[in-house]
């Protein structure tokens, strides 16, 4: 049976085990005995104290230790309802988004335990459905952006719900029977909420990058063809119709029924993903995006976005660029297995930018893929594609290292493309698949290849499969870290 299992692994490009260890180290952080390690959220306070929010309601804190098994955990607070977002304001004050509201907990008598629990913000509804979790990112001005998850048809609603109830919003596979489910909200420094963007299914993770750009993923499912990564802008609709019942423009109408039968209008109205991330090959369920430190403290790929996979032993790496004023780009693996657990959905870098922590849970969903791991850059640079940028006729690809001649040969490169149409079904298969012949391939620098493709056009997702060539690297022969890349070409540069 082993061989059966190995084949799909090979197909998804797990290579070069030895070399990975020269670049990155993955460690299990031991939580205290007796604490079920279902990590809903993590954050560092400014003094470096790490807070960990667990599904059953406990909040642990500890100063990180170099020995991953030697953290001196303390129980700081307890009793949150599936807290999935945390902001550690200080080592004694945190804010947590739980199902019904956002609470602040402070240790006012400095005995090490939170004693003052106050509501910081509320105003979204809660129907009684298990799926309605929420998370946060800072807005750069002492406020937040909050992602408010939808309900699932695998769970009920209660006879008595928190907030307004919409019969139209109750319909469908993932639904929005109560307010702001499927939305991103802005929460100002006083806790006041303003609706920001709609159309989400389960955007379990939201992130504001140092430039102020807001990013959120989603989970493949109804109205989500694969795993999308969205650049969030105010007022946009990101494709899941149920949330629109809370938009006054749709009052009295059923957006789900309307868009089901009007896909053309749907495609005009929705904002597409900046990057579509194939769920089988790369990422099944996007967690919280996080930028790799721009100063290079974590090694190569500085400034690129990581997207953890909540349902795979993977973290994806997104290479963004702005084309005609809009973000789009390529995606591949950052880590695929190598001892990483599944359930990844929260990422935080340490203040020195040399390590990041990944919080893992499948949130009561079966497999114990639960816990906390830490990834450290140990100094090596993997042989990999560093950037993949679009040109009017194809791509210009930069590698992290000088290429062997074999890699500059056209026989090492295979391009194909497809389109995706989200609709009411659970995930959509690729459509209009076709291979692209290479018209011209040029090595324009020791690390750079330019490729021109036949039949190159916009509004397609291009897949690049690279032959697994050997690199000469010091004494070792190493292989490419990744050999599968997907570029979402919403636009061609003009």
């Amino acid at each position: 049976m082993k061989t059966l299992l190995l084949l799909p692994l090979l197909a998804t490009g797990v290579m070069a085990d030895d070399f990975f260890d020269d670049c990155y180290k993955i460690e299990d952080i031991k939580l205290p005995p007796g604490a079920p390690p279902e990590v809903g959220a993590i954050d560092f306070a400014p003094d470096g104290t790490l807070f960990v929010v667990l599904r059953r309601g406990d909040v642990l804190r500890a100063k990180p230790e170099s020995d991953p098994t030697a953290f001196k955990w303390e129980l700081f607070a307890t009793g949150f309802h599936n807290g999935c977002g945390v902001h550690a304001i200080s080592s004694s004050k945190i804010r947590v988004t739980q199902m019904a509201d956002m609470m602040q907990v402070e240790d006012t008598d400095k005995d090490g335990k939170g004693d003052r629990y106050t509501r910081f913000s509320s105003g979204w509804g809660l129907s009684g459905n298990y799926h309605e979790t929420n998370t946060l990112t800072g807005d750069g001005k002492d406020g937040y952006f909050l992602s408010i998850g939808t309900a699932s048809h695998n769970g009920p609603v209660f006879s008595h719900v928190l907030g307004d109830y919409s019969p139209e919003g109750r319909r469908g596979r993932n639904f929005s029977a109560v307010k702001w489910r499927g939305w991103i909200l802005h929460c100002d420094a006083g806790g006041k909420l303003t609706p920001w963007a709609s159309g989400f299914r389960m955007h379990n993770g939201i992130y504001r990058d140092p430039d102020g750009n807001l990013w959120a993923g989603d989970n493949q499912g109804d109205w989500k063809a694969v795993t999308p990564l969205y650049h969030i802008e105010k007022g946009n609709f990101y494709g899941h119709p149920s949330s629109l019942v809370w938009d006054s423009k749709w009052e009295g109408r059923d957006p789900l029924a309307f868009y089901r039968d009007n896909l053309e209008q749907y495609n005009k109205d929705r904002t597409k993903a900046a990057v579509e991330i194939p769920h089988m090959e790369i990422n099944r369920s996007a967690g919280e995006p996080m930028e790799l430190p721009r100063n290079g403290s974590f090694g190569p790929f500085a400034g690129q976005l990581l997207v953890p996979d909540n349902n795979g032993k993977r973290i994806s790496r997104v290479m963004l660029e702005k084309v005609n004023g809009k973000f789009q780009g390529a995606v591949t693996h950052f880590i695929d297995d190598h001892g990483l657990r599944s359930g990844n959905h929260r990422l935080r870098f340490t203040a020195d930018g040399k390590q990041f922590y990944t919080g893992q849970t499948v949130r009561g969903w079966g497999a114990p893929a639960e816990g906390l791991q830490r990834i450290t850059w140990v100094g090596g640079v993997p042989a990999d594609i560093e950037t993949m940028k679009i040109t009017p006729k194809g791509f210009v690809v930069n590698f992290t290292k000088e290429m062997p001649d074999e890699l500059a040969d056209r026989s090492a490169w295979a391009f194909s493309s497809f389109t995706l149409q989200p609709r009411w079904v659970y995930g959509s298969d690729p459509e209009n698949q076709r291979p692209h012949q290479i018209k011209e391939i040029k090595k324009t620098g020791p690390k750079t290849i330019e490729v021109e493709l036949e039949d190159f056009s916009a509004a397609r997702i291009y897949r690049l499969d690279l032959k697994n060539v050997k690199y000469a690297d010091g004494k070792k022969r190493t292989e490419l870290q990744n050999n599968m890349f997907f570029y979402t070409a919403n636009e061609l540069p003009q």
Partner: protein
Amino acid sequence: MENFTSLILITTGCCAVTIDEKEWSPVSVFRFAKSNDLMKSLALLFLGALPLAAQPYLTFNNRPLGSEEAPLVIQSYLPDPGIDEAVFALHHKGLLAPAYSPKEGRDTDGKEKPGPGIPAGIAVSMGPQLAYVFDSVECRPMYAWQGGFLDFTPYWGDEKRGSRVSKDYVPRLVGSLYYKAEGEHPLSIDGKPVRKPEFIGYSLEKGVPRFEFKAGDHVVKSIIRPVKDSFSYEAEWTCEPSAKLAWKEGAFTALGEGKMKYTFTGKSIAEYHGYQIKVDLSKANAKAGDVLFNAYGCSGCHSTDGSKGYGPSLAGLADSMKELEGSSERVKADTAYLFESIKDPNAKVAKGYPPNYMPPFQLKDVEINSLVLYIQSIGKPE
């Protein structure tokens, strides 16, 4: 019980016991117990739960219990033990909805019924003598009970299997219910009834929560503590700025000036025994498989109507020819295949799914055989 030769009681907890209706009689224990300590120890014996003070974390013990010294305060979905409709003045109503077919993408025959539950309540356990729910929406105690707390098994899942129960995951009460809220908010301030309270939060005073809310220009605080007598609790209400306080709930009344303190004594309204599902597993049967299919959360990933979901649909699966990952051979989904796919889900992985995607659920063979019979009873998609 007489119909079940073998009773499966799904419960966790370090020393969970099979609770027979006849063995379980906390009411009589409390009625005849003179000593508080005896009451405590007897209650613990019956509950099979350890006080939380011995273990600081919320653990895989799905029946946590606080104590007077270290109360447990948990916001969660909470059971609604039949509370008067008028109490839910500030909640909105969940309505009957047309059933939805994920296969068709349309409304279909049938209705989805909303179920009982409290969405934003805060449950407090102060040991076997007192548990109560304070609601953050209505800003009042909703109900109180003694002899246990909550059984989170259907919501948190057990340690090994992990899954919540599909559509029936609200934690269950454990113990004797003796207080249920009645009517609109019972508190008046200077003769004016509280109608639109706004929750502020709570402070822990030596671990005991004092809840706070705004009512007009007043800040109202409420602390509830256990007392020695059975079916009783003591409540203290204060308001700032100071004003005349009055509590009128059913036939019960209390008065105060700036501060109001009263002891409520009720009588047993109902007994609750936590979460248990009863299935006849004397031999494998499809009916038991149906119950387990929901209890173990299988339905979260596998549809029974042919629609796509997280895992393959089970509609028409039995005896069909299946494509597998990493193999060009097709295999027949016969009894042996279905059994293996549950027992060791990664032995053969269905086409289109990654390895190690479905967890092994560590079920007994008779449970697996029941699930297989259930899967074989599901028809082909229309």
